[in-house]
């Protein structure tokens, strides 16, 4: 069934879109897009670790990204630097360390472009399993922490006062972010994963008036982006990651038409 590389890419991409849709809404609501970027940059280090020690790529990326998230939390507590400076520090230094390590691994031929921008040819049956199994777990966990996470996104103190334990939900969500990056890195590429999280969610915001609708449209937007993106990647021989993101951007631009109308209605 998965003999054809294109079918494999499609099945993998659909799995990713189902997960990035709801997660992406929280990334937009909680203003975590730069945080997502930092985790994604650190994924390069995870990939090099995987090659160096012959580990599963997704697992290795997940471990490194989670470690970077923990380091960030520690740095936020111990230094007086603003959050965005710390994020930049971690993003660029982990990317640089990853690239330097690649330089040392002369015995392995790396497809850097594939790593940065995604490669549909690289998706194998194993990856499909990782994406769908990992994605299912991510969605189940997200469903379990939905109430406290959503409540604390609206207002931290209300959630804390009314006994929802928002700190725990936030910590779990951070791990989910690392996990979604780990399962989608091969397909979308590390430079563009955050785009896959935020662009469909941003599009959905323009056409939604409730959180549930926004999650729903965000999933639909992600699915359409993957399908349109992969077909055009095949058609025009472009990298899969950028093609998917360009498709997402096109949907976002279309959604702006809706915003213009509703602003007119208000005035």
């Amino acid at each position, binding site marked *: 069934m998965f003999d054809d590389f294109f079918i494999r890419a499609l099945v993998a991409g659909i799995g990713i879109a189902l997960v990035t849709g709801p997660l992406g809404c929280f990334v*937009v*609501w909680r*203003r975590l897009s730069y945080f997502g970027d930092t985790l994604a940059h650190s994924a390069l280090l995870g990939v090099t670790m995987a090659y160096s020690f012959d580990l599963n790529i997704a697992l290795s990326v997940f471990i490194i990204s989670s470690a970077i998230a923990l380091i960030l939390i520690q740095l936020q507590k111990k230094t007086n630097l603003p959050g965005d400076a710390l994020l930049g520090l971690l993003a660029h230094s982990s990317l640089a360390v990853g690239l330097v390590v690649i330089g040392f691994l002369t015995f392995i031929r790396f497809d850097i472009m594939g790593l940065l921008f995604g490669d549909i040819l690289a998706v194998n049956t194993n990856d499909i399993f990782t994406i769908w199994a990992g994605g299912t777990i991510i969605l189940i966990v997200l469903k379990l922490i939905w*109430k406290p996470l*959503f*409540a604390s*996104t*609206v*207002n931290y*103190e*209300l*959630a*804390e*006062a*009314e*006994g*929802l334990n928002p700190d725990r939900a936030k910590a779990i969500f951070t791990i989910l972010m690392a996990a979604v990056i780990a399962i989608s890195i091969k397909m979308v590429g590390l430079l563009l994963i955050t785009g896959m999280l935020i662009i469909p969610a941003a599009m959905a*915001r323009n056409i*939604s*008036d*409730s*959180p549930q*609708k*926004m999650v729903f449209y965000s999933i639909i937007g992600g699915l359409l982006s993957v399908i349109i993106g992969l077909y055009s990647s095949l058609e025009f021989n472009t990298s899969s990651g950028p093609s998917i993101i360009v498709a997402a951007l096109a949907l976002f631009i279309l959604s702006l038409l809706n915003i213009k109308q509703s602003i007119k209605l208000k005035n």
Partner: protein
Amino acid sequence: MNSNNILVKLNNAGFRQNGKWLVEGVSLNVEKGKIVTLIGPNGSGKSTTAKIALGIYKNIEGSVEKYTNKVGYVPQKISIDWTLPLRVHDFMTLTENIKDNEINEALTLTGVLNLKNKNLGNLSGGEFQRVLLARAISKKPELLVLDEPVQGVDYTGEIALYELIKKISDTLNCGILLISHDLHTVMTATDYVVCLNGHVCCSGSPHDVAKNNEYKTLFGEQASQILSVYEHKHDHVHSDEGNIKKN
């Protein structure tokens, strides 16, 4: 006093931020069916005390004992981010799943049922305040913490909402920790008053507090006109730096 009725108990509680005490040495009990009101000037630690009672502040001095998890909270300031599309009825079920008829009931009580499907971002300050109060009472809490719950509400609405708060305390038999600037309400609807100014200046029944000179010093002539207050001895004065000097 039956200790089984206590919902939250503060023992000599205080909170320090960046080396500065926001409030210290507060002891109070909120019991079932009783309204405890915190009064005091700006920056006297009223909201801080409420947040200590709610467990929002973690590294506190002293201790808090909380005997209920059914809590409703109306914060003084709430900033909602409009990157979130949120309608009034989404907000009502924020921390607990509440049945639709209970949502309607609570919104009717605070007079904003017509706003149920409106976007939160389109509400006026007073309307939003009514929604906040409706949300807090709709979950039928055992403990209600209301931090200036009627700010921005029109005059007649204010009176009606205070009557509602009193009624809720009776019908739900819940304990209420109320922060208010409206001394009329405080003195008529409250069971126990705590007057704060970085520490507890005086506390007791409204009648006792009104007679207290500390109270009079803090609230001045107007407060004295509202209530018949008689003079008694200062035992300490507050300097401009906020220090307390014993006489």
